[in-house]
């Protein structure tokens, strides 16, 4: 039962002939594409050229900025002030957090936890922060915390007003929403170069780069919260003679506050996921240890700061999450508890010394590395076999096709494919992105990146779907799987590169493995949720009609969960792209490598910046192709989530 997309179905009554035509069309198009490929192979290919004039032009622009950084009014009166201001903010947080000392900071965290959610959250905060100290990560964690808090603060200060505006005015929303779409799709790697050009390296750029990534959820969720405030309440307030401002301040904002707090929660999560990346542009903190371990191929040393980031994430998440849930408790009890915990912590600082005591730290790097070395030494044949199978069996053939096919043919094929899945509009946007990539003189590298993404995404989506189906069908399996997926999801994506490098050496397959670990949890969860959402009555009906379990799955559950499955594919692909790009740090090459080289070699700057743009276009293209679920069937979804 092939459901023809709305755009392709004719409005006149469908004759049997037309129906047959619609059914055979995709196959016919596929055959046509293959035939065209055979005929036009190796024509209209766009081989890579390091010397493209566009790259030189960007380099010249960079040189202009470098020369005029201290003379041009745009820099003197705007950019440099922004940089100084943001750097000051970071220093302020860093100074304050350092001055508290470790007992003080633990006390403050406990106090805020108590204020937000009672003794449980306070205990979690204390345990997690103590854990950070025990792992020997205290100083780096304070830097990371300072950077995260500055970026989150800026995101909220800028994001909440924009969100309020977008929530109140549909026309603002129409402008903001696609911009946010792009911000969330684009791989974080791609905007490091422009940020560094404007603000130089250092904590200021790092804070700004983090903010760019963290601001979309702040805006989106604020807009949603404001939009959802009950209109009757607003009407009541207005009829009582409240001004617009009063209504906003006394009615809308307080009523939206719970949801906005959830937005804060999401903003913090996004900010923390940038921690490893900004270490590349001289941000202090846990990311530095991660990157360093990556360069040393030291799995243990990378895992430990990864755990540190997870612990910080847990504390901030629990505090903001429980703050979003209303709870009745006496004001005096709350505040006095808060005060007691904070004062106790701060008072202990001079007693216990501000630095975390070294003798309390434990070493777990070595045991982890012992395990890794053992696997490396004993599984060598197996891992090499896997690597070669995927490289020779999947990656190389696909890459050959993509780089020898004419660019117009690939564009047409993508247009047809996206049209079929997500409609004409999405198809045109996707094809437009490809044309733009061709114009950026980065076609070949983009096709190489696309190859890795496609292979990784297929593996990830298949595995994720299997896990999701398994979890949806067996409670026992779901109970085992869930904590594993939870853990995999909270670890910073960078940590996954390391075990992958240790096992599979450097190359594209390593990037694939890392993106697999990164994206599988999300895919599996979406699939499981989609299948579970199929109403029990439907299943009952199908069963009583005599369906086997297998028929139930293929004929009822999966078709009914179509939109969740497409959403899972969409998320899987976007996440895979983000990770594959980072894989350039371990030899996965292509566009990601161009970006890395652009940051670190000045003659490659232009190419790196353009590669960042190409990555954004690639991301938009992949998103549009798989947007079917969120875009067409449920137009509300994208705007909200």
């Amino acid at each position, binding site marked *: 039962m092939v459901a023809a997309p709305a755009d392709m179905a004719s409005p006149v009554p469908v004759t049997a002939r037309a129906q047959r035509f619609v059914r055979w069309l995709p196959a016919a198009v596929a055959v046509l594409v293959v035939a065209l490929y055979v005929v036009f192979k190796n024509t209209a290919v766009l081989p890579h050229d390091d010397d493209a004039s566009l790259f030189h032009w960007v380099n010249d622009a960079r040189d202009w900025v470098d020369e005029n950084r201290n003379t041009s009014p745009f820099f003197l009166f705007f950019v440099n002030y922004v940089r100084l201001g943001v750097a000051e903010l970071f*220093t*302020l947080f860093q100074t304050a957090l350092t001055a508290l000392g470790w007992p003080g900071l633990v006390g403050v965290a406990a106090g805020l936890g108590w204020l937000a959610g009672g003794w449980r959250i306070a205990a979690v905060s204390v345990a997690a922060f103590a854990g950070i100290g025990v792992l020997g990560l205290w100083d780096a964690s304070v830097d990371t915390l300072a950077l995260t808090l500055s970026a989150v603060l800026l995101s909220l200060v800028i994001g909440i007003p924009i969100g309020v505006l977008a929530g109140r005015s549909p026309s603002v929303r129409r402008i903001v929403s696609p911009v946010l779409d792009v911000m969330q799709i684009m791989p974080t790697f791609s905007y490091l170069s422009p940020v560094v050009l404007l603000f130089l390296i250092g904590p200021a750029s790092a804070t700004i780069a983090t903010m760019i990534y963290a601001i979309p959820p702040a805006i989106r969720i604020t807009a949603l919260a404001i939009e959802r405030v009950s209109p009757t309440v607003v009407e009541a307030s207005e009829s009582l003679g409240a001004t617009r401002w009063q209504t906003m301040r006394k009615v809308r904002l307080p009523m939206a*506050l719970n949801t906005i707090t959830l937005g804060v929660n999401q903003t913090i999560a996004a900010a923390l996921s940038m921690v490893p990346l900004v270490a590349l542009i001289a941000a202090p903190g846990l990311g530095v240890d991660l990157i360093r371990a990556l360069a040393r191929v030291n799995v243990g040393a990378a895992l430990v700061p990864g755990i540190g980031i997870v612990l910080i994430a847990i504390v901030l998440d629990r505090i903001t999450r429980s703050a979003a849930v209303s*709870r009745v408790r006496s004001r005096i009890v709350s505040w006095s508890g808060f005060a007691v915990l904070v004062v106790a912590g701060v008072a202990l600082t001079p007693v216990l010394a501000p630095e975390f005591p070294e003798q309390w730290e434990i070493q777990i790097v070595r045991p982890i590395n012992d395990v890794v070395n053992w696997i490396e030494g004993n599984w060598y044949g197996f891992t090499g076999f896997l690597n070669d199978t995927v490289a020779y069996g999947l990656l190389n053939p696909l890459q050959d096709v993509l780089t020898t096919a004419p660019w117009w043919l690939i564009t047409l094929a993508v247009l047809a494919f996206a049209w079929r899945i997500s409609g004409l509009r999405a198809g045109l946007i996707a094809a437009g992105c490809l044309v733009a990539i061709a114009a950026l003189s980065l076609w070949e590298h983009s096709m190489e990146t696309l190859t890795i993404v496609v292979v990784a995404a297929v593996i990830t989506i298949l595995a994720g779907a299997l896990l999701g189906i398994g979890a949806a069908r067996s409670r026992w399996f779901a109970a085992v799987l869930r904590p594993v997926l939870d853990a995999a999801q909270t670890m910073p994506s960078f940590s996954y590169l390391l075990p992958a490098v240790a096992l599979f050496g450097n190359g594209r397959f390593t990037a694939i493995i890392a993106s697999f670990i990164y994206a599988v949890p999300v895919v599996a969860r979406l699939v499981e949720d989609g299948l579970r959402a199929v109403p029990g009555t439907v299943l009952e009906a199908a069963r009583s009609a005599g369906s086997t379990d297998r028929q139930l799955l293929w004929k009822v559950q999966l078709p009914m969960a179509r939109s969740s499955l497409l959403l899972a594919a969409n998320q899987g692909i976007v996440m895979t792209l983000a990770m594959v790009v980072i894989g350039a740090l371990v030899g996965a090459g292509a566009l990601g490598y161009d970006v*890395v080289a652009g940051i670190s070699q*000045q003659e490659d700057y232009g190419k790196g910046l353009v590669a960042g743009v190409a990555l954004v276009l690639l991301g938009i293209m992949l998103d549009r192709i798989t947007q079917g679920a969120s875009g067409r069937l449920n137009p509300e979804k994208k705007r909200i989530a």
Partner: protein
Amino acid sequence: MNKLRLVAGVLVLGLAAAGCGGAKVDDTSGAAPSSNASAGAGTAPAGTVKMAINGWVGYEASAAVVDYLLENKLNYKVEKVNLAEEPSWQGMESGSVDVVLENWGHDDLKKKYIEEKGVAVEAGSTGNKGVIGWYVPEWMVQKYPDITDYKNLNKYADLFKTSESDGKGQLLDGDPSFVTNDEALVKNLKLDYKVVYAGSEAALIKAAQQATQQQKPLLMYFYEPQWLFNQLKLVKINLPPYTDGCDADPKKVACDYPPYDLDKIVSKKFSETGGPAYELVKNFNWTNDAQNQVADDITNNGMTPEDAAKKWVEANPTVWQAWIPQ
């Protein structure tokens, strides 16, 4: 209104923290205000030195020793900034880096940051002699004696094929940020090879070890000083000899890498206000062997950089005492 209370709590704390933190921000360094960091010693440090740490262990060895001396003999606080080579120079402009302790040539950057912008100055040689080149494991030379001449490389390209090299021979390079002309060399010497980036020094070392143990063919970018040469033997490929200026245009290079006299670069500001710390950096000068010894301890003997530096400092007092400013 639980959230309001939480927000208020955060604000109160923020203000209080700003109040007691603000007084300390006045030093010009702008970052890491931990002036009470060297607890135990009881005295405030003489200042903070921001030292760039580039991505190879030889650099880290030099940095560890200078760091140890600065902290323990001159009572400075050292902040290590992990960065690639070129961003480190940028850091001297933005103020996030004071010292680059092991610079490999980079004449273009010297021109830009020292001559044109005037934000950095040279601080003399480290005493280390740098070599960059292409290497193969020793067993390959025994088996294919003429492989060390670059003209014969095409003949052996098939040996070096991997899943990542597009049907050509693979030339394994390190971190994309390292000094390299390899892509231009492959092109201009008309070699049937593809440059594949391993991503880091550690990945290169691992490849060399595997190539030696398992007798796998390997052609790779590598350099001295490097502790690995004490552990296994690699043979350098003879590229067309270096002549002065043959590498002037990075796109047209068709000759070997120059011999490098590794040197130190410091920010202009640090050279003016760095005091004894700057003097120590300027005086720092040691041999490749010394560096390899410390690097070996860090990589293979499970020592932290601090411990390895301490061991070397205790064993070689006459060397470093000459660096300490009077």
